[in-house]
């Protein structure tokens, strides 16, 4: 882990560090050599850490007032909103915090897609990230059920029923998940337990995510391997800490805007109606961050195949390091990939839009085309593009275009092979 031996200055520090090298770890984190060309898209890792901590702290406080029982859950949430001191603030931070978390994670993921951060040697970081993303979706879904409103209840019904698509054992699994013959009190209590558990699983995976990151080091906007430490790097503290901190402040302005000015705009009014198992709301929609996958689910007319398509859309990301055959990481040097990248971004936004619309007529047609394109992008375009694309020559180092020369011999040696692609 340590590039150089660290010895604490104080005697006590040395005594402690010899027994538990926490100070060595802290030194590794502060001195950690970071590419000096990291742009603001790289600040979302820190922002996401902030989001996770915010959710854990506000969630912990909400759990002190919330009652996980089908007869009392809805009222206890209203009790939090009206009676508990600052309950409205804490709940609005937690509810909008989920949306902010997803906003940040989508930017973080699309940053990786653009700059090829998922490619060798960073596949494990990427896959851990996908697992975190899956857990985030699970946590968000479970949390959305807890207020026991109409959307909570029917969202839970629809999502748990996805498992009934599994042949033979599907119905048994759904009954097992529910702990009954429909979504009811046993479902609520277990959802609350799991909702409480998952953030801590995420926290553990975040540690692995950062650990795996610190083995090869950060990717960077030009996507080349850099020598560490060198003229191409700056220490994490204070350079990146300040940059991350500034970006976090900007992000918190957006966050605060939602919390204080439009706290319910990202939610659904039907969730302020208490759960009623006899009436399904006329128009069930998941939270905005799940809409693209919901659109994929609905675009397939067959139940089982629809579920498979939706899950594949997520799991295909885990295979991305092997589907993208190009050796060049950054889209900066891949003119064709860059265009397909923006088409994919548009495609996902379109899926999100049609996911919020009724599944009929033109919307359904658009959803089907966009779903097909999503899979074509990953299964056809990316593998072929790696062989066909004429890429732009990659610089030898971050400083080369400005100062000439390179502190990085390995890239210099590789340069010819990269240009000849």
């Amino acid at each position, binding site marked *: 882990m340590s590039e150089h031996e660290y010895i604490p200055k104080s005697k006590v520090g040395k005594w402690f560090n010899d027994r538990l090298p926490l100070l060595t770890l802290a030194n590794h984190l502060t001195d950690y050599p970071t590419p000096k060309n990291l742009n603001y898209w790289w600040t979302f890792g820190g922002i996401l850490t902030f989001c996770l901590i915010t959710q854990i702290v506000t969630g912990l406080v909400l759990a002190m007032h919330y009652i996980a029982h089908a007869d009392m859950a809805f009222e206890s949430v209203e009790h939090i909103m009206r009676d508990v001191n600052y309950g409205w603030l804490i709940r609005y931070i937690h509810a909008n915090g989920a949306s902010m978390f997803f906003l940040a994670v989508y930017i973080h993921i699309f940053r990786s897609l653009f700059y090829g951060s998922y490619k060798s040697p960073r596949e494990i970081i990427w896959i851990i990230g996908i697992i975190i993303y899956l857990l985030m979706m699970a946590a968000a879904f479970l949390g959305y059920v807890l207020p026991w409103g109409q959307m909570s209840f*029917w969202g839970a*019904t*629809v*999502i*748990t*029923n*996805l498992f*009934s698509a599994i042949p033979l054992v599907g119905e048994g699994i759904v*009954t*097992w*998940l*529910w*702990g*009954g*013959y*429909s*979504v*009811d009190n*046993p479902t609520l209590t*277990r959802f609350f337990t799991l909702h409480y558990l998952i953030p801590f699983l995420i926290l553990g995976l975040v540690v692995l995510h950062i650990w795996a990151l610190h083995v090869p080091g950060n990717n960077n906007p030009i996507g080349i391997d850099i020598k560490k430490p060198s003229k191409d790097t700056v220490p994490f503290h204070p350079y990146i800490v300040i940059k991350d901190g500034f970006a976090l402040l900007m992000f918190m302005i957006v966050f605060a805007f939602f919390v204080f000015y439009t706290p319910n705009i990202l939610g659904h009014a039907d969730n302020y109606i208490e759960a009623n*198992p*006899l*009436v*399904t*709301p*006329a*128009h*069930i929609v998941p939270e905005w961050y799940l809409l693209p996958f919901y659109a994929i689910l*609905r675009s*397939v*007319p*067959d*139940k*089982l195949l*629809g579920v498979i398509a939706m899950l594949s859309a997520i799991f295909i990301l885990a295979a991305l390091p092997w589907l993208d055959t190009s050796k060049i990481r950054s889209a900066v040097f891949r003119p064709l990939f860059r265009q397909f990248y923006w088409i994919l971004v548009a495609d996902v936004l379109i899926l999100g839009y049609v996911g919020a619309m*009724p*599944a*009929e007529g033109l919307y359904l047609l658009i959803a089907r085309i966009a779903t097909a394109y999503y899979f074509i992008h990953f299964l056809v375009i990316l593998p072929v593009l790696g062989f066909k694309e004429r890429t732009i020559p990659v610089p030898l180092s971050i400083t080369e275009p400005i100062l000439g020369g390179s502190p990085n011999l390995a890239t210099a040696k590789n340069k010819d092979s990269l240009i000849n692609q």
Partner: protein
Amino acid sequence: MAEKKTKRRDFLFTATYAVGAVGVGAVVWPMIDQMNPDASVKALASTEVDVSSLNRGKTITVLWRGKPVFIRRRTQEEIAEAKSVKMEELKHPEKDEDRAKDPEWLVMLGVCTHLGCVPLDQKGDYNGWFCPCHGSHYDTSGRIRKGPAPTNMEIPEYKFVDANTIKIG
């Protein structure tokens, strides 16, 4: 060379793993099974419904095992429409006679077989039910005709305990 010894070891390893697996299974199963419906949930298995006030062409919805059950007293036109459908046209072929023993009374789980929403009465292209969630259309016999749902709406076990009372479950 050490073939005999290796065999003895292999046996011990296999036996240990086998006993270990049984032990783990014995501990894990209660942890899994505790999530299945408990005794108090299972105890609510049947419901009796008074249908004396239900007129022709009307539906009532009752809760059975936490799920809605539609009880519809069908009109002659609806019965005729349900009976006239050819089996080849159906995604999940079932005769109307098999679904409604007394053709006037259709008793079925009001749960869309796609993802579990409650379909709306007297809506959709087949004058039966329409699920607002993902657009499944059901006919006057509750059979799936169009949309993503794979099967017809389920018929629960029920019987008339007297002329005015249906017992579901």
